[in-house]
């Protein structure tokens, strides 16, 4: 298993070279890789009947308990057969469909096939997630195509975004689930499912992930949008394989998580709603691919409901429908691709008479569409019979489900007919489309898949073998349901017939229904909601960037200061009781000094002239120094005076080289009041805090110790004692730093003097520059 996946990924690197050498037909060889996987999977089927399950494990990181665990049980085998079989067909088909881009698309398709094989056989939640994201990336790169069109770029991003978001949430669900269960191994989790605690949250997140991947309402718009991709990609990723991953996940986990109260109702409601709404939308699309895409969304809804129902028969029906849908939808996409390729259009209003020109192709399409509509003796019929059976015997809620299913199937029949008519019929009033004949090899893969749907229908035993072991996860009803073409004259048979007839009636009356619908108010459009969300987030981003990232230093600083106010500031206000500080020793002269300091500080703010601003800053400093003197710290005051004076001199020297006045300030009050608030707030915060902090002291102050010990040091002056005794090394260090700084400043001054520029030459050069620039213009 591991080996096969590795082969997929490794050979993908060679595909572009191969295609360059052999042309697009080289992809026929590439198709062998999934074909071999398919063959290997077939050899595992007999083992399945015996109950032997193939397992593999590879330790990824022992410390993290990360492992690549693979386990090939019934469900995994069914999915593996589907993805490898369809994969081989699609790659063979691509050899004819693709042109210049074949190397890249082929390589990515192969990587995707490998990732999908890994996804369905993974037995470890993280392994599953790894492959899940790998498919997302492949899908993203494949939808983008050459990306010449704006549309494909948007579609690629939309698909990646929606599924990646879902995937990440799902990862969290996985982690919660794994932690609750104590293991990340799926088989162990399912054997002993965890309960309570975080499990419901995990289940909700996992459902979200599954819904986004399988394009359930309201996450579905990405899938129709993804139809801009080349048709093989649509057929494989967006019909047969990738979008099944979500459904597969639901199928995989329902046996363990169905006990979570909301799991069944949510899966059923979302599934059935999707079934009906998307089928309804399929009836009005004119692009054949879009029609099929909505059909896919609708069928995925059906599968979600069936797998989420958590009963034996429903699971059986789900497994059969999974296989049936993979076969017929891939066929129909491939057929559409051929029509598009040969006739140059896939708009059903333009195509006319294609069926006459391509009878073999239309026969294949009829096979597939019949399976889609659930006609006997096709596989789709087996699935639909089982579906009715699953809900026929229940109580009222089950019957409601049955009604919804029937409505969905009626619409399905209608859009199946519409597809056939749209693609192949001769339309009155439309000129017959010019069609070139396709190569046999081009039609063959579609033919094989289409016929497979018929064969599986004719031979129900095969489906029984593949689907029953999965359904056996649930207790079997008393009358065990077996897939068979003829179950006797049962009520479900009557229902089937009724649905088909009604479907055809709806199709016949489509014009009238359209007229009615146009008068109804429009349903909320999920596509528009997505667009609005994206645009909204963008607008927020633009707005926020404009206001917060204007490149303005004051603004940045204001932000930081405001956060300081909000964080530590509120802690100071509410977090603690303010200890009342000891009343300060007030001296009368303090008041004028304080007024002087405050006045000068305010003056700085109003100053227009640089020099006066600097002088006023000096006044603030001298005022504070005065306060030191009043408090009996003359040495400190002296230092402060010296520093202030020196700073003043240095700044004035610098000011010589600067303009006299400040650049005119932004006078707008709107811009300035937040800064005022921030400044005042921070001032208050620091002030309050200085007062509180001194009162909050619990350890005796170190200054007392200094004073007491200065005698011991033989000093009368405590400051001297501190400087030369207690902290002598600090002093030495400070002196050294000052010396180094002085040397540095001196050398800087010398350097500037040496390289001083004569102003005249600058002007000359500037003039020269201007001239050359004008010349250039």
């Amino acid at each position, binding site marked *: 298993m591991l080996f096969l996946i590795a082969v997929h990924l490794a050979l993908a690197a060679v595909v572009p070279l191969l295609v360059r050498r052999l042309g697009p037909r080289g992809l026929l060889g590439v198709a062998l890789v999934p074909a071999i996987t398919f063959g290997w999977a077939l050899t595992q089927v007999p083992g399945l009947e015996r109950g032997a399950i193939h397992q593999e494990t590879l330790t*990824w*990181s022992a*410390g*993290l308990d990360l492992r690549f665990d693979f386990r090939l049980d019934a469900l995994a085998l069914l999915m593996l057969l589907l993805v490898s079989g369809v994969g081989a067909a699609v790659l063979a088909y691509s050899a004819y469909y693709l042109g210049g881009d074949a190397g890249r698309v082929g390589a990515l398709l192969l990587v995707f096939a490998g990732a999908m094989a890994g996804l369905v056989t993974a037995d470890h939640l*993280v392994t599953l997630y*790894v492959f899940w*994201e790998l498919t997302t990336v492949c899908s*993203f*790169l494949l939808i*983008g*195509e050459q*990306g010449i069109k704006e549309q494909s*770029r948007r579609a*690629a*991003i939309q698909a990646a*975004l929606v599924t*990646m*978001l879902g995937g*990440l*949430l799902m*990862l*969290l669900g996985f*982690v*919660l689930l794994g*932690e609750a269960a104590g293991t990340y191994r799926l088989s162990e989790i399912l054997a002993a499912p965890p309960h309570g605690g*975080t499990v419901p949250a995990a289940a909700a997140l996992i459902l979200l992930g599954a819904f986004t991947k399988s394009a359930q309402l309201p996450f579905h718009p990405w899938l129709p949008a993804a139809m801009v991709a080349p048709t093989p990609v649509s057929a494989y990723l967006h019909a047969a394989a990738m979008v099944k991953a979500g459904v597969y996940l639901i199928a995989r986990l329902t046996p363990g998580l169905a006990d979570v109260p909301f799991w069944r109702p949510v899966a059923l409601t979302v599934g059935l709603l999707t079934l009906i709404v998307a089928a309804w939308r399929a009836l009005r699309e004119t692009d054949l691919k879009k029609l099929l895409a909505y059909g896919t969304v609708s069928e995925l809804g059906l599968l979600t409901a069936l797998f989420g129902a958590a009963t034996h028969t429903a699971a059986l029906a789900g497994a059969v429908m999974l296989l049936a849908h993979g076969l017929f939808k891939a066929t129909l996409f491939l057929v559409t691709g051929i029509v598009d390729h040969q006739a140059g259009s896939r708009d059903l209003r333009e195509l006319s008479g294609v069926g006459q020109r391509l009878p073999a192709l239309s026969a294949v399409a009829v096979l597939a569409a019949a399976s889609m509509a659930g006609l006997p003796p096709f596989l789709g019929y087996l699935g639909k019979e089982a579906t009715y059976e699953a809900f026929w015997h229940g109580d009222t809620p089950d019957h409601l489900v049955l009604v919804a299913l029937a409505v969905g199937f009626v619409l399905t029949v209608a859009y199946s007919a519409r597809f056939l008519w749209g693609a192949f019929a001769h339309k009155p009033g439309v000129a017959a489309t010019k069609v070139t004949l396709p190569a046999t090899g081009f039609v063959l893969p579609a033919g094989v898949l289409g016929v497979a749907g018929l064969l599986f229908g004719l031979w129900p035993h095969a489906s029984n073998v593949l689907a029953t072991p999965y359904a056996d996860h649930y207790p079997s009803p008393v009358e065990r349901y077996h897939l068979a073409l003829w179950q006797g004259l049962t009520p479900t048979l009557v229902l089937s017939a009724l649905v088909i007839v009604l479907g055809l009636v709806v199709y016949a009356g489509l014009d009238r229904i359209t007229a009615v619908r146009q008068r109804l108010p429009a349903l909320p459009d999920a596509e528009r909601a997505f667009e609005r969300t994206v645009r909204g987030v*963008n607008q927020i*981003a*633009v707005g*926020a*960037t404009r206001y*917060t*990232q204007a490149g303005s*230093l004051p603004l*940045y*600083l204001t*932000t*930081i200061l405001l*956060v*300081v106010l909000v964080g*530590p500031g509120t*802690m*100071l206000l509410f*977090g*603690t009781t303010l*200890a009342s500080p000891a009343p300060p020793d007030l001296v009368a002269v303090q008041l004028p000094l304080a007024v002087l300091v405050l006045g000068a500080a305010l003056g700085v703010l109003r100053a227009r002239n640089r020099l006066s601003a600097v002088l006023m800053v000096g006044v603030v400093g001298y005022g504070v120094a005065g306060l030191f003197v009043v408090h009996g710290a003359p040495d400190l005051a002296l230092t402060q005076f010296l520093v202030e004076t020196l700073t003043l001199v240095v700044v004035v020297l610098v000011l010589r080289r600067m303009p006299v006045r400040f650049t005119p300030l932004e006078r707008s009050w709107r811009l300035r009041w937040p800064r005022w608030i921030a400044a005042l707030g921070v001032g208050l915060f620091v002030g309050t805090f200085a007062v509180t*902090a001194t009162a*909050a*002291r*619990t*350890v005796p102050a*170190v200054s007392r*110790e200094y004073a007491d010990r200065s005698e*011991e040091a033989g000093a009368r002056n405590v400051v001297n004692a501190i400087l030369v005794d*207690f902290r002598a090394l600090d002093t030495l260090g400070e002196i050294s730093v000052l010396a180094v700084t002085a040397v540095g400043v001196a050398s800087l001054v010398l350097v500037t003097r040496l390289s001083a*520029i004569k102003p005249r*030459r*600058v002007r000359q*050069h500037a003039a020269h*520059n201007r001239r050359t620039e004008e010349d250039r213009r």
Partner: protein
Amino acid sequence: MNVSTLTTVFAQGPVEAPAIDFAAVAPILIVFGGACLGVLVEAFFPRHTRWTWQVVLALLSIGTAGLAFGLYLREFTNPTTTLADRLAVDRPALFLWGTLIALALAAVLLIADRTIEPGGSFVAQAAVRAGSVQDHALNIAPGGTGPAGMRTEIFPLTLFALGGMMVFTAANDLLTMFIALEVLSLPLYLMCGLARRRRLLSQEAAVKYFLLGAFASAFFLYGLALLYGYAGSVKLTDIATATTAGDRSDTLLFVGLGLLVVGLMFKASVGPFHAWTPDVYQGAPTPVTAFMAACTKVAAFGAIVRVFHVAFQASSWEWRGVLWAIAIASMAIGAVLGLTQTDIKRMIAYSSIAHAGFLLVGALALTEEGRSATLFYLLAYGFTTLAVFGIISLVRDADGEATHLSQWAGLAKRSPVTAWVFTFLLLALAGIPLTSGFIGKFVVFTAAVQDGMAPLVVIALLMSAVAAFFYLRVVVLMFFSDPAPDGPTVTVPGVFTTVAITLGVLVTLLLGVYPAVALDWVGPGLAFAP
């Protein structure tokens, strides 16, 4: 300083030199020694030979430091402290040292490159006014020999910053941490202003970084002083002991912690202290941005983890709420504002803000898992982001680097290899499996969930999805658009840059495919020094 130490000082007893475990601190000593030698090279060697000498010296210093580190690692058994308890030598510190040394080696290679930008990405004469005659003359070939060589002081500056970072991550007390903070910051401020091209932008970035950084340092220092007032010690373990006793003023503790956090978050460019990041990342010369984005982040978060886990674990339930808010703000700011950026360097800057939020989520998980997850994330993110900036420096037009996103349109058609490598790196930043980014996110988020922070993880995942959008936008632009007719060209890098980028890409891949190499190393037993 408490009373007992005072007594020793006053008693004038013999001062005992603290025991130094030279084997343990050898890497730091070698880096600082190399830096000092680099200064001497500047002083005594003729200008035209300096580049060679400096490159050899820088690479040799980092290489020898790495060797000394490796030798010590084999003997390392128990977490311990050295230099009178100033430095902790434990597994987290050693892991971060190793990470820093490896990242710095790659960063120095980027800095030393002279093939991409003739003469190097750094200005030849920083003191010359931008746009003046001299400035102009420096970029014109004198006699056809090409533009003047770059300022080679950048190498000793890098080494000083690296040394500061190494001390920062191992500092066992707040004062050492503060000094290390300054030692690592001051060279960075200067390095930001040395770009050869767009000099005004570069100088503006340096000034902004410096002014805001000075504020942040002041906050850190203020917080430190308050915590000293609270605990009577600046040692992290003493603070931890004080918080468990709980008989002291909570005001001092929480306001002190708050201010300390402001300083630390600023360095780690965590929102809302991020405002400088886009401007500085954009303005600084790209190799310096690479160095800054990778190494500063590692150092800052190394210190954050140490502070939270060692000193404030016991009081965590009282402050964790605030940090939740900061983490959410950071992730939201990074992811949402990143959406509309049109300059690739600014975009990566916002991405780094978002990643800082993710890292904070890991750092807030105060368990051994949280610790090891954060360290792993740092290693992974460091290498990825280094390679990202390496690639950015390659895409150029006549005016230097072509950083406007529109210029990257259709790059895959001009240079498929560059585009694929860049795509891989972007996917790693987005956290896609099989890249180191995924494992990093996975371990961080798992640790956070285990520590009961599931709501925060939900937000983190939502923001990851939003952030994925702008990474994908670049991928779309490179692959799915037509190249502009006069678009930039991709320079074929010289050996240095090639080695650096290759190293980053290989580590990103290796840690994504086989994370056990690093995870075993940060695995169980990640105890801090007592």
